[in-house]
């Protein structure tokens, strides 16, 4: 069962599901299933006799979370808790996605899964408490924190840059914040790889980080996007102080994927290769 199937990650799951005919997928968009609605969640999980629930539903706007904390906590914390509770009852494995926003971004080196999580704002706090609700409810679970997520679906930095790159001659992009991009299709491939190996009799309780190999600033990211898409738009580096945003943004958000690679024998692609794959696919769409 995949919750939040209309979002970036959910749509990628939907796109590759047919390559796994041995499994039955049940997709629920946030309109079809509000994960903070306990009754409805329980009913859906029973109906599909769910072995694995993948939670792709989240309230992801960092800025809107500051203005509307209740909505953020309702989905990101309470929704995660409800899924975990019914996963526990149903003896289903819960795969829950979280974010680099659980960290304060003040580290000078990639975050490991054991590093203390100290979120800066409402969004990060709601996601961190969601993780804690999952751990406390006690189902078999894997929490996967992801980096700068993009995909062919939904709204994301790459799609915004591709659009602006066609409209403008030049574009200012922040050069002082560093992180690791993540192509949603790679995350989904990794999760499918894990699902091929999980033993549903076992109880898992692990937290992982997943990001493509390598790091960049938003500026480097934008330069690569323009180059890869052959767009003539010039990218100019600016300091983040030049942009006013309402939600807090971490300085440093590179994630170390070492433990997920080691535990599940995964190879993670380099961010530039995945970006090229996404842009090639986007053109075909």
């Amino acid at each position, binding site marked *: 069962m995949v919750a939040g199937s209309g979002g970036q990650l959910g749509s990628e799951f939907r796109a590759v599901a047919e390559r796994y005919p041995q499994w039955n997928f049940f997709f629920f968009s946030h309109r079809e299933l509000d994960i903070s609605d306990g009754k409805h969640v329980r009913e859906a999980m029973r109906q599909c006799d769910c072995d694995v629930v993948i939670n792709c539903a989240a309230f992801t706007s960092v800025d809107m979370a500051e203005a509307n904390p209740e909505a953020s906590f309702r989905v990101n914390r309470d929704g995660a808790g409800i899924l975990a509770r019914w996963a526990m009852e149903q003896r289903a494995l819960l795969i829950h996605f979280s974010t680099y926003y659980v960290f304060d*971004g*003040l*580290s*000078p*080196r*990639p975050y490991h899964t054991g590093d203390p999580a100290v979120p800066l704002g409402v969004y990060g706090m709601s996601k961190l408490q969601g993780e804690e609700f999952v751990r406390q409810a006690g189902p078999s679970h894997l929490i996967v924190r992801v980096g700068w997520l993009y995909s062919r679906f939904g709204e994301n930095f790459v799609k915004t840059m591709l659009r602006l790159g066609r409209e403008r001659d030049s574009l200012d992009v922040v*050069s*002082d*914040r*560093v992180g690791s991009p993540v192509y949603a299709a790679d995350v989904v491939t990794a999760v499918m790889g894990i699902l091929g190996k999980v033993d549903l009799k076992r109880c898992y309780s692990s937290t992982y980080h997943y990001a493509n*190999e*390598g*790091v*960049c*600033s938003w*500026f*480097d990211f934008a*330069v690569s996007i323009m180059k890869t898409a052959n767009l003539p738009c010039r990218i100019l*580096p600016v*300091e983040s102080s030049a942009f006013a945003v309402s939600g807090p943004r*971490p*300085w*440093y958000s*590179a994630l*170390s994927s*070492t433990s997920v690679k080691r535990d599940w024998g995964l190879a993670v692609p*380099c961010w*530039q290769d995945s970006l090229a794959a996404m842009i090639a696919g986007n053109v075909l769409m």
Partner: protein
Amino acid sequence: MNIMITGSEGQLGSEFRAMACAYPQWNFFFYSHQALDISEELKVDKAMRQCRCDVVLNCAAFTSVDKAESSPDLSFRVNRDGAGVLAQSARKNGALLIQFSTFGVFDGMAPRPYREDDDAEPKGFYGKAKLAGENLIRTIAPSYLIIRIGWLFSPFGENFVKKILSLGQERTSLGVVSDRVGSPVYAADLVSAVMSILVMVDLQRTYSATYHYANEGVCSWYDFAIAIMKLAKLPCRILPIESNAFPVFGPRPWYSVLNNNAIKRDWGITIPYWQDSLALAVIRMQALSL
């Protein structure tokens, strides 16, 4: 204008030598470290008088981070004392001193690009010696510019790009550290920037500024190596590794990105993107090796 360049056979000095012919209006005097040991006061003084030096560019340094740990004295003699001697001589001769320093003066624990006024807390002897050199210059030299730079590369001397190019020809795959971030600096870009500054300086004025110079953008050593392989069209696969898998002797900072806004703003220069400069450097290196 008479310009004296010490350490003229190093990475930076060699780039100055290569670019000097584009500035026929100036007289350049090059001294390799064999020709002039900057920690020898009398010789430095004599050299500066002989060339009636208006500007002295100090490209001489003891740059090995690992060797600085095993022989700190050597590092301090060149990086601290040598800088002090040049500052004294610049004072006697009324010359502007341009000193090159390093991201190694910082502890590398910042999560965002280092600004010039961030606290310098070096971790090892190399950084300590370079910082002590900066401080002597600030105390002694009447007019100076100190330019701290990032991960330097050029066709000259030893550097990461040359090492990766040669390993890329020998091996089919290579593990490179992916958890340390910094900004590469192409020596030729830095030299162009210094030349533009020299065009604009007013020698009647006194300067006392510290700047950071690095190409635009950031990368990890892993990203850097991938870009090198791609540009050189070498089939060697680069594999990301954590730095604890790769023991080194001297301390290495985690984060060494430099904020280059002050030098751009004060001198109206633009700085190229690191991958664009790397592309030029790789072409040049391949041409030189033919």
